[in-house]
């Protein structure tokens, strides 16, 4: 069981300084619009994954006018006590576990696990392929330490290769030997990433199917990984060399992978209704929780941003039965009345107003 007991924020988003104790069960974070509800659970996500689910610009997380942001938590993973800290500054980020800095973020990731349900999830299906790669990468980063390392190496080498391609394109260089070397190095990591994504998606699908059936009554969902590099084809980079030079960028590789969803053989992106998309994203995230439980033997921390309160009572109840009763859950909502608290056993309500706690209340009595 993974639980965050205490969270401290310094200069994170609208929060100047905050310290808060959480319930090991359900935490409902309420408040008007733009007060900091999402930011609070974004902080939890960021502390665990070392990246935000909302932005790729780490410095956007630093409170305007400040130099750094600091997220600190006292947490538990089973019997093990964890003290986690992430410091974000313009120079980069530092991940600290039990007061020791982890030089490689890949060694820090996976100490805790989170699954986030957010309004942005709709883009997971509707948006560009990069959204789907992001979903896969964020999940795999929590599952496999080597994956994070390989992905970082791949990105670094991709940048090197692209810079060299630009020089070749502009005829500032004619060094094809260097291009070969960079392609060879890139291929080394591309192969590993492609393989891990393939295995992960194959496993994830087995968890998605039954959940999707339970939510929609339908059995016709298909998920297909479409790797940009063909199986075992180490000639891919070589084959595209001329195109790559002409365009001044690398046109094949994991950074161009796609993952496609089909209902009854039809691509979901094109045909699905808003409701179907919502069901599918819910099923994907719920499957991820099952994946963590079965493959990693951990119950992740569950973050529900706005998603829960947008469901009607019937669906809220449905979702709650699908979620693990033993998990620590965070729910944000503008209206407490939107949540049927009668179905919850233990919960804590935390009311947020412009980056401060306005009130805290355990089980019941009105705020």
């Amino acid at each position, binding site marked *: 069981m993974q639980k965050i007991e205490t969270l401290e924020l310094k200069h994170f988003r609208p929060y100047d300084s905050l310290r808060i104790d959480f319930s090991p069960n359900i935490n409902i974070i309420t408040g008007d619009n733009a007060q900091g509800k999402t930011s609070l659970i974004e902080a939890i996500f960021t502390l665990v994954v070392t990246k935000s689910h909302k932005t790729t610009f780490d410095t956007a997380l630093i409170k305007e006018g400040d130099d750094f942001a600091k997220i600190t938590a006292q947490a538990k993973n089973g019997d093990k006590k964890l003290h986690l800290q992430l410091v974000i500054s313009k120079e980069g980020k530092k991940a600290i576990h039990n007061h020791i800095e982890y030089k490689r973020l890949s060694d820090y990731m996976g100490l805790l696990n989170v699954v986030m349900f957010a309004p942005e999830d709709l883009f997971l299906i509707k948006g560009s392929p990069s959204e789907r790669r992001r979903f896969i990468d964020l999940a795999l980063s929590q599952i496999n330490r080597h994956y994070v390392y390989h992905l970082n190496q791949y990105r670094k*080498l991709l940048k090197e290769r692209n810079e060299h391609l630009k020089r070749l394109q502009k005829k500032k260089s004619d060094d094809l030997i260097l291009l070969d*070397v960079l392609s060879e*190095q890139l291929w080394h990591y591309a192969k590993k990433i492609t393989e891990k994504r393939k295995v992960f998606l194959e496993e994830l699908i087995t968890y998605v199917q039954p959940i999707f059936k339970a939510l929609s009554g339908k059995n016709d969902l298909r998920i297909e990984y479409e790797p940009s590099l063909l199986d075992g084809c180490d000639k891919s980079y070589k084959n595209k060399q001329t195109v790559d030079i002409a365009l001044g960028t690398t046109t094949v590789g994991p950074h161009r992978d796609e993952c496609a969803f089909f209902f009854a053989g039809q691509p979901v992106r094109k045909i699905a209704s808003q409701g179907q998309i919502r069901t599918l994203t819910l099923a994907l995230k719920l499957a991820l929780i099952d994946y963590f439980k079965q493959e990693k033997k951990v119950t992740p921390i569950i973050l529900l941003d706005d998603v829960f309160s947008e469901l009607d009572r019937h669906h809220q109840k449905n979702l709650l039965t699908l979620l693990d009763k033993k998990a620590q859950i965070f729910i944000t909502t503008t209206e407490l009345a939107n949540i049927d608290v009668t179905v919850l056993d233990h919960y804590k309500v935390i009311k947020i107003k412009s980056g401060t706690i306005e009130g805290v209340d355990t089980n019941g009595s009105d705020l």
Partner: protein
Amino acid sequence: MDYPEALSLLIEQFMRYPGVGRKTAERYALYTINQFSQQDYEGFQTALKRVQEEIRPCSNCGHLTDQDVCRICVDKTRDQSKILVVEESKDVVVIEKTRTYRGLYHVLDGVISPANGIGPEELRIKALLTRLKDAAHEEVILATNFSDEGETTALYIQRLLRDTDILVTRIAYGMPAGGNISYADEITLNKALEGRKKF
């Protein structure tokens, strides 16, 4: 609050060093003012002046020296058949301390990294090829760091020498991935040298 101009200038000079930010630079500058005697100032000035005037890269291998050709290059008792290729001069100093290696060196002055604007032509790779025309040299040992750039550089030189009869070897992974030659301990370096293999 601003420092007087002369002090600000000194702080800025210290900030040029890698890993030194404003705070550390301030500490160094204030230490200088509070602790330096007249003699210390003179010592510092002389040292700076002397490195500027006397120290230059060896015209043969690129290692820093106060001669035209460095002491290692002129030493004919050293094994002329081997050239060990490193990124920086300080790698030579570290490897020399192990006393295991008795061949020659070649300092590249960096690593290939197009993303940082450094192509092969910015490094002393041509100079290496020129040196290798001398038949006395039979083996090139690549000892760049095991970072991506170090690996790119090693692979690149290997490719250039692929069709020659020069034996190309790479020091073995006796060190953690991403490790820096200059920070490795002697035992690790010895192991890495002993375990070098065809590359």
